[in-house]
């Protein structure tokens, strides 16, 4: 149990979060999230698509220096099967639904359904997936396609916050486009395209997305640049594995922070505990970290 002597509460698009720590989409099962509802400010579902997806053939994960590469392929049971089990998320904290589609229409359909689902507090659209109507380029391949899908989703989700999750490539211009089109928050960043090779086997191990502490400096840069350029809150994601990582993201400009692969190597509970200890030692609350980042200075004092 994290001590409540430290004030961890933050607010995100009008949603009160009792801690700034959330699970990253696709990295915590409903069971794991329920067991951690006391430490997660909200829970985030795995990305759900309109129809069931089988996922990619194995191998799907490989380790890398301070990280891992995954190639899951959005395996999920599809919208209706998922909605039938929404009760799994009755853990007492807000639920953010992650959704993705092959077309703008699919995104809209998913958002419409979420708009009427009382259990869902916000929707996070995952734009790191191919847009089949545009030759398979990712939705987040450029600001035009980002703007198009965000604007359509914003209309389809009256009364609920729309979070837009982007990759690092082109993140600043895509973020500006998303904000302009009505995004209520930006989740930065999704995994970075990567490849692992097994030299002894002379094989590809996994071609997929890199996550984990290795990408933390890349994610921090994205959060830093974007939070200085937009008005909407930014949710930091990428490489969180220790309490000070949560602080680093909030200092860089994040309003809340997601932990993904770090929770495979460690317990989110430990990470939040370290964050609370850090705040205690610094005599700060979670909210104090916003905008409290000073400039770099040399070591020998000039």
């Amino acid at each position, binding site marked *: 149990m994290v001590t409540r002597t430290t004030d961890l509460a933050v607010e995100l698009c009008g949603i009160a979060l009792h801690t700034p720590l959330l699970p990253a989409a696709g990295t915590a099962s409903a069971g794991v999230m329920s067991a951690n509802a006391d430490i997660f400010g909200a829970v985030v579902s795995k990305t759900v698509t309109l129809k069931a997806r089988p996922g*990619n053939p*194995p*191998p*799907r994960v490989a380790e890398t220096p301070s990280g891992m590469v995954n190639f*899951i392929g959005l395996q999920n049971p599809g919208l209706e099967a998922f909605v039938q089990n929404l009760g799994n998320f009755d853990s007492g904290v807000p639920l953010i639904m992650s959704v993705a589609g092959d077309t703008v229409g699919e995104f809209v359909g998913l958002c419409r359904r979420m708009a009427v689902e009382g259990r869902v507090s916000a929707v996070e659209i995952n734009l790191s997936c191919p847009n089949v109507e545009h030759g398979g380029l990712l939705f987040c391949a450029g600001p035009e396609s980002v703007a198009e899908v965000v604007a359509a989703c914003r209309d389809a989700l009256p009364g609920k916050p729309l979070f837009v999750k982007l990759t690092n490539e082109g993140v600043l211009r895509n973020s500006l486009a998303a904000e302009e089109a009505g995004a209520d928050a930006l989740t930065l960043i999704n995994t970075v395209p990567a490849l692992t090779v097994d030299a002894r086997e002379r094989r590809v191990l996994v071609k997929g997305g890199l996550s984990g502490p290795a990408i933390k400096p890349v994610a921090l840069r994205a959060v830093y640049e974007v939070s200085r350029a937009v008005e909407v809150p930014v949710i930091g994601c990428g490489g969180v594995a220790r309490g000070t990582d949560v602080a680093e993201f909030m200092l860089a400009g994040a309003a809340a922070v997601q932990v993904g692969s770090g*929770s495979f190597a460690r317990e989110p509970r430990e990470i939040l505990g370290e964050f609370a200890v850090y705040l205690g030692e610094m005599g700060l609350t979670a909210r104090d970290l916003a905008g409290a980042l000073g400039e770099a200075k040399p070591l020998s004092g000039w």
Partner: protein
Amino acid sequence: MKLHPVEVISRERYGDHVRIQYLWTGDPPQPGQFVMVRAAGHGLDPFLSRPLFAHDYEEGDVASLLVVVRGRGTALLAEEGSALLVSDPLGRGFQVTEDGPVALVGGGVWVSPLKLLARSLRRRGIEHDVYLESPAAASGAYLGFLKENFPGATLIETAGGTGSAVFLDWVGDLARYESIYVSGTAETLAAARSAAAGVVPAQLAVRERMACANGSCYGCAVPVWAGGEMVYARACVDGPVFEAAALAW
């Protein structure tokens, strides 16, 4: 994933294999379950914990693992003096019938879970035969280990380092068993699966690379049949032991 610091009691070397024993007072592991393990004091490098089958669990709360050093992760686990962090027992192990006789078929480091399985069968009085691969290149120390830990087991010599279909021939007519339990090389798993098909129910302990080990990430996909359709099950929660007939290989 919650990991517990454990007290390592011993590390014994048998050729390439290392048996690690540690004190364990948590839930007793079931045969075919695995644990996630990492070496303490190395921060997050390597990043992921390593899955290892529960090899044995004795009275006196002594749990053991059987490890072959492959890369840096297993090297750190096997290193003399290195402190370990170990998860609770995980996954779905062998589902044991009440009727014998049954056969246990294994090879390589994958014989590991068969020790705990044999112990459980013995305790429950279920008749069982054990067939283990004895690669021509295996060290005397390892063969000694097999003989000591699987008394009465039939050791079948195979050429090359890995299992082979020939191995299964030696086991003979599988129909005389109620069930077979297999944990061996990829070749042995595949051969056992086809030999058992339509003859005897077989359960296979399979491996796939893991990240979360708690069903969250869908990283450890294993193709299985579900209602005539191929779907990906998760080795960490739906396995690592699967009905051979269910595997969509």
